[in-house]
């Protein structure tokens, strides 16, 4: 016989109990501030990809697919079912590798919470404060399960446990109590993708859809619970302990719950490439600040870093996404173009002979000692050997933009937002939207800002 009696005090009840009780006036103000920062950052990052042809095609398809199109697709003038709007947002949100993340899990819960949260908030006509609460809660649930999960080798976190961020945010925006939220989580876990991490390394753009699909499945899970659907007693243990994951350390889910807030431990990116390349890039930037190095002066450039980053060693990436996962291209394009943004990964940059030639002179080595210092550190050491015999060296223990290492100030986040959002929205609208997002908790109805999301 299967066990049917349900314990009332397990980790899922504790977790859902805590996050359903979140209100902005009862949590530390630093957590609320982190929620605002996540929302500003992620919204800008989503907007930045909306003019990409594939995203535009996807947005058109999703708008056409919708029965009750009441959620705006950001940066377009189309609407879709909340689930399908979330799919577009999530796909766009990871496109440029500029979305924030969480170094202790290697995942990106913010992207899912915001992608789904914006779509569902509009449909449910909630207040700005409620959206902020839902995003904070979604981040907390997903990141904590992420901390406890050891994924199967070869899997990508995208499409996996971060789906819980979307499911939680959607459920809270629909007013769910702890019991219904628990049901939502247990429904969502069986809708996780069997994602492969090689897609990113090869630059297969389906990698971006993992995030979109995951955000959509989070919304679907919450909607299904409203339809009366049910999930198993503890889908988190089943899926992350045995199916997508090989081991779930349940104690880690609850460790410091209510005292340590995971959303405060997230990072923000200013370089549009894979996060594990950032320490190497930061080290290189620090070298080039002291020495004006010309690409042709470089004999060779050696990178030593932790093992996961060291696999990103493709010297001739074939497409923009693969280039974002190539240490040689990232470093070479910085030295040639003197920037680290979206332009480094355009088709033009990929065809740039100077970048290609320099990338071939860059070698990447995994370092056992550095690997043993992860995830509290994610070290990299750069050694530039110049043709005149000089050797320049620099290292970084962590990338900038971490909460505990060179955090990105609010003004920098605003700058990043305006840089990314002005393209699709125009400068004025982007500026207005930014102001509203920073003051979201004062918006009584999310509708006050919805019109600013669209073209």
């Amino acid at each position, binding site marked *: 016989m299967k066990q049917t009696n349900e314990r009332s005090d397990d980790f899922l009840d504790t977790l859902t109990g805590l996050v359903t009780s979140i209100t902005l006036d009862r949590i530390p103000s630093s957590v609320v501030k982190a929620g605002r920062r996540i929302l500003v950052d992620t919204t800008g990052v989503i907007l930045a990809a909306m003019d990409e042809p594939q995203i535009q095609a996807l947005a058109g398809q999703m708008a056409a697919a919708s029965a009750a199109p009441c959620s705006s697709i950001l940066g377009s003038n189309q609407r879709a079912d909340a689930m399908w709007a979330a799919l577009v947002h999530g796909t766009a949100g990871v496109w440029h590798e500029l979305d924030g993340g969480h170094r202790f899990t290697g995942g990106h819960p913010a992207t899912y919470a915001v992608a789904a949260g914006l779509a569902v908030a509009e449909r449910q006509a909630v207040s700005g404060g409620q959206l902020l609460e839902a995003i904070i809660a979604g981040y907390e649930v997903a990141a904590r399960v992420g901390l406890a999960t050891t994924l199967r080798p070869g899997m990508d976190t995208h499409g996996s446990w971060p789906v819980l961020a979307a499911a939680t945010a959607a459920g809270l925006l629909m007013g769910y109590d702890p019991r219904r939220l628990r049901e939502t989580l247990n429904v969502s876990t069986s*809708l996780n993708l069997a994602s492969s991490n090689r897609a990113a390394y090869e630059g297969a753009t*389906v990698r971006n859809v993992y995030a979109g699909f995951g955000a959509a499945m989070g919304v679907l899970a919450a909607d*299904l619970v409203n339809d*009366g659907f049910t999930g198993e007693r503890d889908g988190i243990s089943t899926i992350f302990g045995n199916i997508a994951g090989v081991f779930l350390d349940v104690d880690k889910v609850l460790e410091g719950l209510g005292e340590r807030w995971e959303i405060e431990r997230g990072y923000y990116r200013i370089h549009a490439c894979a996060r594990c390349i950032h320490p190497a890039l930061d080290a290189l930037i620090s070298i080039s600040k002291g020495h004006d190095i010309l690409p042709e002066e470089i004999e060779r450039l050696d990178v030593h870093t932790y093992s996961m980053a060291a696999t990103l060693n493709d010297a001739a990436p074939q497409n923009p996404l693969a280039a974002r996962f190539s240490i040689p291209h990232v470093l070479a394009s910085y030295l040639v173009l003197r920037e680290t943004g979206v332009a480094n990964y355009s088709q033009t940059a990929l065809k740039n002979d100077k970048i290609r030639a320099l990338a071939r002179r860059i070698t990447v080595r995994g370092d056992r000692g550095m690997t043993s210092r992860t995830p509290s550190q994610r070290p990299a050491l750069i050694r530039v050997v110049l043709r005149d015999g000089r050797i320049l060296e620099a290292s970084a223990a962590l990338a900038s933009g971490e909460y505990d290492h060179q955090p990105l100030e609010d003004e920098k986040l605003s700058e990043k937002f305006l840089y990314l959002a002005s393209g699709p929205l125009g400068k004025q609208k982007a500026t207005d939207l930014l102001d509203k997002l920073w003051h979201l908790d004062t918006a009584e109805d999310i509708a006050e800002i919805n019109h600013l999301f669209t073209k």
Partner: protein
Amino acid sequence: MSGYDLIVKSEHKGPCLPNEERDAVDCLAEYAVSTRLEDLPCEVVEHARHVFLDTLGVIMGGSIEPQASAMAHRLGRQGGGPCTVIGHNLQSSKLNAALVNGTAATWLDFDSGHRPPPGKPLLPAAHPPVHLVPAALAAAEAMGASGAEFLTALVVGYDIGARIGMASRLRAEIHPHGTYHNVSAASAAARLEGADAIRMKNTIALAVHLEIMPSFENAYQGRTVRNVYAGVGATAGILAAQLAKANFSPQHDALGSIYGAIISPWLDPERLVKGLGRQYEITQGFIKPFAACRFAHPAVEAAEKLIKKHPVDPDDIDAVEVMTFDWAASLNDQMPQTDLGAKFSIPWAVASMLVRGSAGADEFRSAALRDERLRAVAARIRVREDPHYSAMTPSKRPARVTVKTGHGEVYTEEVERSGGGPDAPLSKEMIRKKFRDLAEPVIGKEQSEAVIDKVDTLGDIADIRDLTRFLIPPVSSP
């Protein structure tokens, strides 16, 4: 076991074999876009028609369940798109219709499946049609495709997903719904949408990337998200075809990565293409005579045999012992709490046969769960593994039912393989009867007969919408 002997006589051009220029997935893609209805042996097309009719019936039977109905009304509306939300006066997009119809299709657990993958221990059979039919139907309706194109898409789509399943070994804790038959759904949709071989190849790989890894545990616990797996699979198939059109790219060897490590520990590419274009997996499926988990069927059939020979008064049943193979022996819940849980309970399924002489859709709906006589008998049924039976799997999947009456009589019956599969197919008449039982309460007698006629002559129908217009309830006269 080979049920292929009938089929190999086809004179179709030889199979596409991988070489230096093309891999196994190229061959699958080539097969999916180049096969024509004329290439297919009549028996194969006949199987496709049976699978289609059977799936339409189970979708209708599931569509009226409250949760499925709530989902249908949320994702469809009158005039809401080119695709039919089956069993309701609602229409929607391809994505939404596939999601709703795929979910309704598995609700009764009465839908047809494919033979279990080879190897031991036994793995559950996958159910291609609940992914394939909703996706293909949605794509065909949106295109106004012909019946011939639709049937061809069913045959090739079935083959592609089934071959992935047979060439790998899905992890046992994963429920097969929402996995490799997403690829069946995607390739059928892409075929109907006129994809060429390159786009087909991308579609197949993108669909592999959009597989979920859902838990079997939900089925054991009778939780209804289990029914959504196939719906999500059907919609992921449609999405994969759309992503391929929008130039999204898959990784180079998606199948190798995902089936060689993540969702399954190994993949044997040779098995993907062996006999392709000559052996049709749609002929290797089963159509369910009982509305319960397939592995419960031998026990139910043994109970059916038993009561035919020895009519037993249900109130006189003292104890029932069911001996069966390993996997089935875990379906032992004597007191299922939900309709889905009842379908994964041999005690419930066998009790239905002993008490009501039937194990159809109605024996597992919520109302039946309150039947005190049924509950009393189910509580007296014990299920255990017979290791000899386990050793006979997967080619045979036996069960033995022994009934002891209060008067001291003991009756036993054994079944080695349950009916409905390739070696003991349901007759055309039985398939039609099952369809009528499921469809008539939803669309009425007249339309049910119209659907049967249309499916019979499907190869000659110029536009599939000439059939799908009968899949919604008749509008009652004002």
